[in-house]
């Protein structure tokens, strides 16, 4: 589906370039995190509408593949939805284009409103199995997680699990919507989704006493914030620079906000 969209975009870009008789199109390839991918596609679409001379290809592959793609040059821009590891940070230049707050959600009837990261880790590693141990009713916790390789799971493992394994007893759902659906129908379930996905069918939890909202996510006070990074080999240049600047500009940020992302500025 997504490659198809990308191809359609390329085709549209090409036609635009030919139709206007401009100079041949410049290609720009983005590859990496599947969490960033849908937003990158939105950005690419809007950017190409204004700059038909640039063809943008957006590919998935995961955050790690995004770093690799930027290092090897298979993509001018690598996409990554977690903090870079030290050796990765040396190899590429990262630009934070947006932030996403992962919100813990439970069923609206669950009396628990607040968890610590420590409690969360114990819940997801199955050391804590009952809601009673974290101030709720005496019910077995249904742990809901995302599938192996998803950016959301990767970021959750980095920020919460601290090297521990997510329990194999956890239910695995393959999209944010599926996690929300599962949590909204199970009074004993807990799951994690992007802040933009939370709606009235589920209840968002405070983490370490901090409510996830724009202020706490942008300032970094909320513990589960992951950056969406655009990676380039060396400082961005040419079409890559134009695109990144545009994404960071008012138009790009307005699109991100409309899609439920938060601006990159920290403090």
């Amino acid at each position, binding site marked *: 589906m997504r490659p198809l969209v990308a191809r359609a975009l390329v085709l549209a870009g090409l036609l635009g370039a030919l139709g206007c008789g401009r100079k041949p199109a410049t290609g720009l390839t983005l590859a990496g995190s599947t969490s960033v991918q849908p937003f990158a596609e939105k950005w690419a679409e809007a950017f190409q509408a204004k700059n038909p001379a640039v063809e943008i290809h957006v590919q998935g592959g995961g955050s790690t593949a995004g770093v690799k793609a930027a290092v090897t040059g298979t993509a001018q821009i690598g996409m990554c939805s977690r903090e870079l590891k030290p050796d990765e940070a040396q190899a590429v230049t990262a630009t934070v284009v947006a932030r996403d707050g992962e919100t813990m959600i439970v069923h609206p009837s669950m009396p628990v409103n607040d968890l610590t990261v420590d409690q969360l880790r114990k819940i997801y590693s199955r050391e804590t199995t009952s809601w009673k141990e974290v101030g709720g009713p005496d019910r077995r916790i249904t742990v809901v997680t995302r599938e*192996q390789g998803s950016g959301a799971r990767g970021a959750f493992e980095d920020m919460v699990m601290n090297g521990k394994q997510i329990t194999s007893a956890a239910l695995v759902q393959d999209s944010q919507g599926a996690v929300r659906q*599962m949590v909204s129908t*199970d009074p004993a379930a807990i799951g994690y989704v992007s802040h933009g996905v939370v709606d009235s069918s589920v209840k968002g939890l405070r983490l370490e006493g901090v409510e996830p909202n724009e202020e706490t996510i942008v300032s970094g006070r909320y513990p589960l914030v992951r950056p969406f990074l655009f990676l380039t080999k060396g400082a961005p240049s040419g079409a890559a620079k134009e695109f990144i600047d545009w994404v960071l500009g008012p138009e790009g940020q307005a699109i991100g906000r409309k899609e439920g992302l938060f601006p990159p500025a920290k403090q």
Partner: protein
Amino acid sequence: MLLAFSSITILALITLFIFREGAPLMARVGLGNFFSTEWRPGEGLFGISLMIVGSTVVTFGALVLGVPFGLACAIVLAEMAPDRARTLLKPVIEILAGIPSVVYGFIGIVVLLPWIRSNLGGPGASALAASLILGIMVLPTIIGISIDALQAVPNSYREASLAMGATRWQTIRRVVLPAARSGLVAAIILGMGRAVGETMAVIMVAGNSVQMPRSPLDPVRTLTANIALEMGYAAGDHQAALFATGIVLFAIIMALNTVANLARGRRVKRATAPAAGAEDLQAARDDAPQGESPPGAPGVTGTQRP
């Protein structure tokens, strides 16, 4: 001719591709790793045995529900129901086969999971839920092929049995069912193939945990779910491991189809041996439903036809 060969070629290419992608990984990590119980692709652990267990559990669960209902339904439609009822009901069952699996899955999430959770306990998403949904999904396959098998039994058998004073039920049980046995076995096996290969509905209701289920209420992950869940992100060895999962699935479906064909083939031989006109006709009819193989292996049954 050309078209027939092109479908075989496509099947061969698909097979070749799956094996080319998956087999090197199986060889590299070793069968010990590949059939272990640890699935942590990030750390190079590609054990799929728990997925094999998951597929087996939900498939047999589906058969426990689907076979009695399916056979009973087929017997009623083929042997007992008046023609009017049959012409009305058979298309309805065929429509059941046309409902997209995501719809079954969605009904499962919205209706079945909460019901299981509040009445039986556990997280709802479970081997039981997947079995129930699959049990309904295999019905059209089992009913359709069983009806064909039952109708292929020559009327002279029934007439002879009734003439000897047997009741209708005795006739069905002692004469018609044994005569149609191999066709019924084939129906069940093809239903099984359908259950093993189903993906979307299972992902939605099975919970997809990679663990050994200790009760029907525990979540499980099937082979198909494993591939579909992780293919979107997988790269490198992880992706190869998913193709290797596909090889295992492919082998299972091939084996099921072969068994289904053997079951039918035996019937053909037995029927043609006495060289009576009626039996020949039956053998020909018996062959007919072979085209309805599960989606996993479209050309498999076709290639074995004379």
